[in-house]
């Protein structure tokens, strides 16, 4: 773009007329570069650098230490107070100081994007943020959720008067995170965008600014969070799905009691997230066959449900693919070219000025639509599978004789610990004898008679 030669005035005038044709992409040098006679020196062009990569490694360090402490506080110390303090720190550091980016929840999309787009080199620290909490959950449960996740922390801080979400409703709502996860992965894989970040309800608080709708969404989530503890965590968070899977398989997981359970029922209502399960009254043997039959029925039904919902997913190809900029652009161009719309949008103006052939855009758009078709099948099938697994889970009730935490949904927050008389014994507040007295005889008798 640098020329020493001077162009004739005529040429400049001609260029001015040609300007619309030349397009906006490359602006030619119309005005000659001045030859200064004074010793004028051009000012420096400043290029302030992004946040140093070294600082990202500090973030990794903070994450590792926080995860270690969270696990230590929950498993060894069993101290709700320390977990809470760490949670406040994480809210301040990962939330308000680091402005919520990057977090493992959003990293799901970077990971997917990296897997499907060879051009994107995923930064190392994003991988670490994605992988570490999962690995930890595989061994010690969701201690990340208890005290490290800034989104969890901001919700946990407003839990005032948690009420129970009825079992049926909770079961239905618990499918949402799977749907959200599937959609986010599909949209990231096709390059349509990162919806988890786009619809993050709390990031606006961390940055002290968001658009109006998101502020409303965030505020209502917090408001709801005062009575329904951590609504985002339980009924939306897509990373929670992955953590849930890992945590279910965890080797060690926090328990309500440090020792034994005598079914005193004191902890029954202590979990605001509904993660404490009552002992199942052992089913009489006669029911067993019926249960096996039901199970067999679902297993036969499974391929049909998976296929059916996969089909529904693939039908969503058109509306879903519109979320990709190229597809919606192609549709607009089509409308304009067919004369159905006369007014150009910014998008179509920019496209027309870019000089890219329309055919190329259409080819790209239909390729993306095909991806959405395949993706829709997979997404639908996945949701169908989840529905069936949830049903099967209902019938595969574990026969438990004690109160226990559901390893998948327990966030290791430590709230229930102090309700347990054996925890009180551990802390030296009461004697083992007193603890035993609190045991509920009826429950035990009912249990062992079956």
């Amino acid at each position, binding site marked *: 773009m640098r020329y020493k030669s001077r162009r004739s005035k005529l040429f400049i005038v001609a260029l001015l007329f040609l300007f619309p044709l030349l397009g906006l992409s490359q602006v030619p040098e119309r005005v000659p570069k*001045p030859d200064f006679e004074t010793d004028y020196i051009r000012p420096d062009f400043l290029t302030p650098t992004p946040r140093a*990569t070294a600082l990202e490694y500090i973030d990794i360090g903070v994450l590792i230490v926080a995860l270690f402490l969270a696990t230590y506080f929950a498993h060894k110390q069993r101290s709700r107070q320390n977990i809470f303090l760490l949670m406040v720190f994480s809210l301040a550091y990962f939330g308000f100081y680091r402005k919520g980016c990057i977090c493992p929840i959003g990293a799901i999309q970077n990971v997917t994007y*990296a897997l499907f787009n060879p051009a994107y080199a995923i930064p190392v620290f994003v991988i670490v943020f994605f992988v570490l909490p999962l690995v930890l959950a595989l061994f010690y449960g969701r201690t990340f959720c208890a005290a490290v996740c800034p989104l969890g922390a901001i919700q946990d801080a407003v839990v005032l008067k948690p009420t129970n979400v009825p079992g049926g409703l909770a079961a239905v709502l618990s499918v949402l995170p799977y749907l959200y996860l599937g959609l986010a992965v599909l949209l990231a894989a096709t390059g349509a965008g990162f919806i988890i970040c786009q619809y993050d309800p709390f990031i606006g608080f961390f940055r002290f*600014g968001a658009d109006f709708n998101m502020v409303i969404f965030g505020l209502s989530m917090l408001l709801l969070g005062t009575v329904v503890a951590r609504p985002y965590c339980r009924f939306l968070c897509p990373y929670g799905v992955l953590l849930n*899977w890992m945590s279910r398989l965890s080797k060690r997981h926090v328990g309500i009691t440090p020792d034994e359970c005598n079914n005193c029922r004191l902890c029954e209502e202590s979990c605001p997230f509904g993660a404490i399960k009552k002992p199942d009254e052992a089913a009489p043997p006669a029911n067993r066959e019926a249960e096996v039959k039901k199970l067999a029925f679902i297993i036969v039904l499974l391929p049909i449900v998976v296929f059916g919902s996969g089909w529904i997913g693939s039908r969503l190809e058109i509306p879903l693919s519109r979320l990709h900029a190229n597809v919606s652009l192609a549709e607009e161009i089509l409308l304009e070219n067919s004369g159905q719309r006369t007014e150009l949008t910014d998008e179509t103006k920019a496209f027309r000025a870019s000089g890219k052939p329309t055919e190329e855009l259409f080819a790209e758009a239909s390729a993306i639509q095909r991806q959405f078709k395949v993706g829709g099948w997979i997404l639908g099938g996945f949701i169908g599978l989840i529905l069936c697994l949830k049903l099967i889970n209902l019938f595969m009730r574990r026969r438990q004789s004690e109160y226990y935490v559901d390893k998948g949904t327990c966030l290791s927050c430590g709230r229930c610990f102090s309700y347990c008389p054996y925890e009180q014994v551990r802390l030296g507040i009461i004697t083992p004898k007193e603890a035993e007295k609190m045991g509920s005889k009826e429950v035990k008798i009912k249990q062992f008679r079956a």
Partner: protein
Amino acid sequence: MIDKTSKKPLKRRDFIRKSLHAVAGLTIGGLAGILFSKSSSEEMVWQLDPNICIQCEKCSVNCVLPHSAVKCVHSYSVCGYCDLCSGYLQPGTKVRDTGAESQLCPSGALKRTYVEDPYFEYTIDEKLCVGCGKCVKGCNSFGNGSLYLQTRHDRCLNCNQCSIARRCPSQAWNRVPASRSYILKGDEKKKFLKS
């Protein structure tokens, strides 16, 4: 957590759990391995390509920051130092004065200083610039295109999903490696790429 009904399912369940645990561990490990093979130690940051941008003004209002991280920058090596700067003056302005009413910039961020006859230097006061791109459009239409928009990385939060990028009508935004965090013009470009 003792299964009282029989011992066999317990063993079987334990075996299933252990194998699933191993499978999960291997999956995460494998995934991490694949990701590391595609990774870079460098951060990716957002930047807009000024050659694609159409100055739609979305940059000034869609940034998550109250004052957009996108500012106008000036490649002095490209500038013609025009007296009649089409990026500085309202179109049709006869008087080349510096009165606010004849300036294109709504916030008075573009400053004009006399260098020598007939040249004027134009600089941007970033504190005042709102990133609307009005001057850019002006400069592009009759000048050299030395004024253009860039997200300034001392301000940009580097959101995982830039909220301007997803609304940019010309798809001018991309993730770029941190060492190539500006897309510049002229000698400024050469100098930046060399450093």
